[in-house]
């Protein structure tokens, strides 16, 4: 295909979705690739083109657009949100008594996955050094929790009851039964914002009369790279903004079928001189299923693509930190990584 002016713009700025593949996936705007274009890094140009637009924000999730940045950096933010923003989670489980039907290791695994509402920025990482002498852990790097519950028969239940909720007391162990045990000066520092699981209604185990759980748990700070329980997001993902271009006017019954090929709200039928003409109204809603390319008479009418530098992020938090704080922490983690290597470069240059 000849690299005409319009074509070059398309190669540089769009990812094309075709019937049997995707074209122009890689970033090519590096200096020297295109004659007549100056692609050298220019902070002023970047700042002019860059923008963020918050679409939706509530306590547990955020949806925002990031425009004018490259996929390498956008992906770095996503990877950091999933795996390198630290949180607190239960790491050591000291089981003093477990007569329930759930095995010790299964119970410990379940406890580890419970999200703990404690601001990880106020804690330190536990020293990876000698573990034997530091079983207790200090107040700056450990949160101690306790789960002590015993199931018994309900004395007030009638004789012919069969519902476990009537017959037994404490037969379902929920995360609200986990109590925080402050160590050191934690009671003064965190007194008002009580530390505990984010959700109260996570079912941990089921008991019957006579069975009991007596467990002490230590929470430490960690990152998702180490174990997925430390990941602060339910998920963090992004997609590129879809772009649908109609190459020729589509009318009548063909327009109705074209409308049906895309998600609802993407294509609208306008009334022009009595006939219905298709028009692209909101390509952002499209899920890019490429259904239109399965119809032989419709596939040459449409050009499907994505805008290369427009990222629509969706970040859903597990509740430990608000989602906007999570995104800001992720950006700070990337800055810290750069700083680490810059310091290393500087220190070796001094030698």
């Amino acid at each position, binding site marked *: 295909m000849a690299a005409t002016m319009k074509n070059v713009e398309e190669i540089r700025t769009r990812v094309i979705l075709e019937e049997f593949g995707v074209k122009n996936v890689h*970033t090519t705007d*590096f*200096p*020297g690739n295109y004659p007549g274009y100056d*692609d*050298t*890094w220019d*902070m002023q140009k*970047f*700042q002019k083109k*860059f*923008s*963020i*637009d*918050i679409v939706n*924000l509530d306590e547990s999730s955020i949806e*925002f657009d*990031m425009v004018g*940045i*490259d996929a*390498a*950096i956008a*992906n*770095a933010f996503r*990877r*950091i949100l999933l*795996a*390198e923003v630290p949180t607190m989670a239960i790491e050591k489980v000291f089981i003093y008594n477990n007569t329930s039907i759930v095995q010790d290791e299964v119970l410990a695994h379940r406890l580890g996955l419970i999200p703990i509402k404690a601001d990880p920025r106020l804690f330190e990482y536990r020293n990876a050094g000698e573990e034997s002498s530091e079983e207790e852990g200090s107040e700056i790097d450990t949160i101690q929790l306790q789960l002590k519950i015993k199931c018994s028969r309900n004395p007030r239940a009638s004789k012919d009851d069969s519902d476990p909720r009537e017959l037994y007391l404490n037969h379902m162990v929920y995360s609200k039964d986990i109590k925080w045990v402050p160590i050191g000066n934690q009671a003064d520092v965190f007194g008002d914002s009580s530390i505990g699981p984010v959700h109260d209604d996570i079912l941990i185990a089921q008991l019957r009369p006579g069975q009991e759980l007596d467990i002490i748990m230590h929470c430490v700070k960690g990152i998702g790279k180490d174990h997925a329980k430390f990941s602060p997001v339910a998920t963090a993902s992004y997609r590129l903004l879809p772009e649908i271009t109609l190459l020729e006017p589509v009318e009548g019954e063909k327009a109705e079928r074209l409308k049906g090929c895309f998600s609802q709200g993407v294509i609208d039928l306008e009334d022009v001189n009595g006939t219905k003409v298709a028009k692209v109204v909101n390509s952002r809603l499209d899920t890019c299923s490429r259904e239109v390319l399965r119809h032989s008479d419709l596939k040459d009418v449409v050009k499907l693509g994505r805008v290369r530098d427009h990222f629509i992020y969706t970040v859903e938090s597990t509740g430990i930190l608000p989602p*906007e704080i999570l*995104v*800001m922490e992720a*950006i*700070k983690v*990337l*800055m810290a*990584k*750069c*700083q*680490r*290597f*810059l310091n*290393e*470069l500087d220190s*070796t*240059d001094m030698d």
Partner: protein
Amino acid sequence: MAVEGEKKTVLEMIQADGADEGCVTFVLHDEDHTLGNSVRYMIMKNVDVEFCGYTITHPSESKINFRIQTRGGIPATEPLRKGLNDLNDVCQHVLNTFQAKVNAFKEGQETSME
């Protein structure tokens, strides 16, 4: 020319004997595509760089081999330093913009609720 930290190395430089300072392979420890790809992008945007690429030598080891070749005899540490600084500035700008937009959004929400 290995660069030592106290106990753990963070960054090493490996240079072929006889070659000039412009062609160096850096070994970055405890890193993966997160930093590798983004730094590679920033360094590729530098006109003085003739070649820039990174590999993860083995998925079980968390280190990357980062190779930079410059034109014109420029030492390879310079584009690396510039790339890291530029990435730092990009992140700072993204952070500032994001913070401003979040505050504006929250204020907009508050005024619409009153």
